[in-house]
C-alpha cells in the first residue's frame, strides 16, 4: 500500500528542533513544513493546505495558546497536537477544550508523535468526509431529488 503523506506543519521557536524533527518525519514519508513563530504558522496555513500542526506551547511573542485560538477560528478543520512542558497538564487540557487533538510532553517519543499524527490525520479525513456527505445531501434536497 502506498502511503499518502500527511502534510505536517511544525511550529517551534527552537530552529534546531524543528529542523531535526522535520528531517526525521520526512524520513518516514511525511511532508513537512516549518514555522518558527505563531505568526509564521498562521501565514503558512493561509498559503498551504496543512493536515496536522505540531505546536509548541511555549514561544516568545504570540504563544501557543493564542496561536491555537486564532488557528481554530480561521482554519477549524486543521488538527493540532500540542507540545507542552512537564506539569502543564492544565494548559494541555485548556488547549484540548479549544479544539486541539492531543498533546505530548517535550522531549516526546517519536513513535508516540507518529501515532498521534496518524490519529489526527484520520480525524480530519473523517470530518471532511462527513462534510462532503452533508454537502451532497444538501445539494440533493435543493435539486428536489431530481437525480
Amino acid at each position, binding site marked *: 500500500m502506498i502511503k499518502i503523506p500527511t502534510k505536517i506543519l511544525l511550529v517551534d521557536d*527552537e530552529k*534546531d*528542533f524543528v529542523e*531535526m*524533527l522535520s*528531517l*526525521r518525519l520526512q*524520513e*518516514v514519508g511525511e511532508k513537512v513544513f516549518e514555522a518558527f513563530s505563531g505568526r509564521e504558522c498562521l501565514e503558512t496555513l493561509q498559503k498551504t493546505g496543512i493536515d496536522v500542526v505540531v505546536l509548541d506551547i*511555549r514561544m516568545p511573542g504570540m504563544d501557543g495558546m493564542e496561536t491555537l485560538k486564532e488557528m481554530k477560528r480561521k482554519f477549524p478543520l486543521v488538527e493540532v497536537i500540542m507540545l507542552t*512542558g*512537564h*506539569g502543564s*497538564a*492544565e494548559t494541555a*487540557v485548556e488547549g484540548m477544550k479549544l479544539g486541539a487533538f492531543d498533546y505530548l*510532553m*517535550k*522531549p*516526546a517519543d*517519536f513513535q508516540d508523535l507518529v501515532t498521534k499524527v496518524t490519529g489526527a490525520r484520520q480525524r480530519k479525513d473523517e470530518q471532511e468526509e462527513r462534510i462532503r456527505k452533508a454537502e451532497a445531501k444538501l445539494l440533493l434536497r435543493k435539486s428536489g431529488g431530481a437525480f
Partner: protein
Amino acid sequence: MESTRILLVDDESDFRTTIAKRLMKRGMEVEQAGSGEESLAILKDKPVDVVILDVKMPGMGGLKTLHQIKENYPKIEVIMLTGHATTQDGVDGIKTGAFDYLTKPIELEQLLGKVRQAHEKILREDEKAKEAEFRTKMEQQMIATERLASLGTLAAGVAHEINNPLAIIKESAGWMKSILQKEEMAKIPRKEDFEKALGKIENGVERARRITHELLGSVKQNESVLSRVDLEELIDEAIILIKNEAVGRNVQVNNRVASTDSVIWSEPYKLRQVLLNLLTNAVHATGSGGSITVDFERSGDGVELTIQDTGEGIPKENLARIFEPFFSTKPTGKGTGLGLFVSRSIIEKLGGEISVESKLGQGTRFCIRLPACYEPGKARKS
C-alpha cells in the same frame, strides 16, 4: 489575681506580718523579706509576680533594691511604699520602672487595687510577648515557604529550558538511526558501531529527561498536615495578627463569619498563610477610613470565603498578572511578588480555587472556594 505571687519587703516586721496575713487571706501567695538584700536572695529561688517594696529601709535602700529587681527581673512589677515626707522617692521609683507607689499609712483595699492592676499589666505584657513570638514564627514560616516556592520556580524554569536542547539531541539521534535502517545503508562499514553509539545517546537523553521531569514533579510535592480546621477560628486568628497594622492605618476589619458549621478538613497552616497574605494585601491596598470585610458561607459540598476591601482596586492590565510569580506593584524590596502566587498554589493544591474581581477606586474582592473534605488524590491538577 487570686494566685498572684507577692514578695513583701519592709524592715518593720509587725507591719509586714499584718499585711502579709491579710493578703494571704485573699488567697495570694506571700513571701516576706526584711531588707533589700534579703528580697534579692528570695527572688533568686522563688518566682514572684509583684513586689511590694518599702522605700525607707536600712542597708540597701528601696530605690536601689528596685533598680536591682528591674535590672534582673524586668517582668516583675513593683509597688513602692513611701512615707508622707518621701513622696519624691515614689516618683523617682516610677521613673526607675516601678508600677506605682502608695503613701503610708496604706489602706488594704488601696493596696489590693494596685496589686490587681499590676497583675493585669503582667498578663497584658505576657499576651503581647506571646503574640509577638507567634508573629515572628509565622513570618519565618512564610519566608521559608516563599523561598522554597521561588526556588521551585527557578528549578522548574531550568528544567524546562533543558528539555528543549534534549529534544533536539533526541530527534537528531533518532533521525540518524532511521537513516541507518535504510536499504542503501545496509552495507556501510562499522554500521554496528554507529548504532551502538546512537543507542547510548538515546539512553543518555532518556536519563536526562527523567531527571528534569522528576525535578519538575518534586517541586510540587510538599509534606502536608491534614487535619480538622475550624475556619472561624482560623479567620479570627489571622485577623488578630493583622489587627495592629489595620488599626495603625485606620482600616476597619469586619468579620462576618458566623459560627455555623465552619469546620472543614484541610491544611490549617497553609490556609492560615493564604489568609494572612490576602488580609495583609488588603490592608496595604486600603486607605485610611476604608474597611475590609471577611465573609464565609457553605456552598454545595464546599465552602466559599471572600475577602473584600474598599481599597484602590487593581488596574485591568495587572489583574491577569497578579498570580504570576515575581509580579509585584510594591516598591522593590517591599514585596517578593510571591505572596499571591504561593497562595494560589496552596489553594489549588488543596483542591480549591481562588479568584479575584476588582474595580478601580472601589476595591478588590478575593474569593476562595475549598472542598469541605480535601482528599489529596482528588486534587485539581495545576
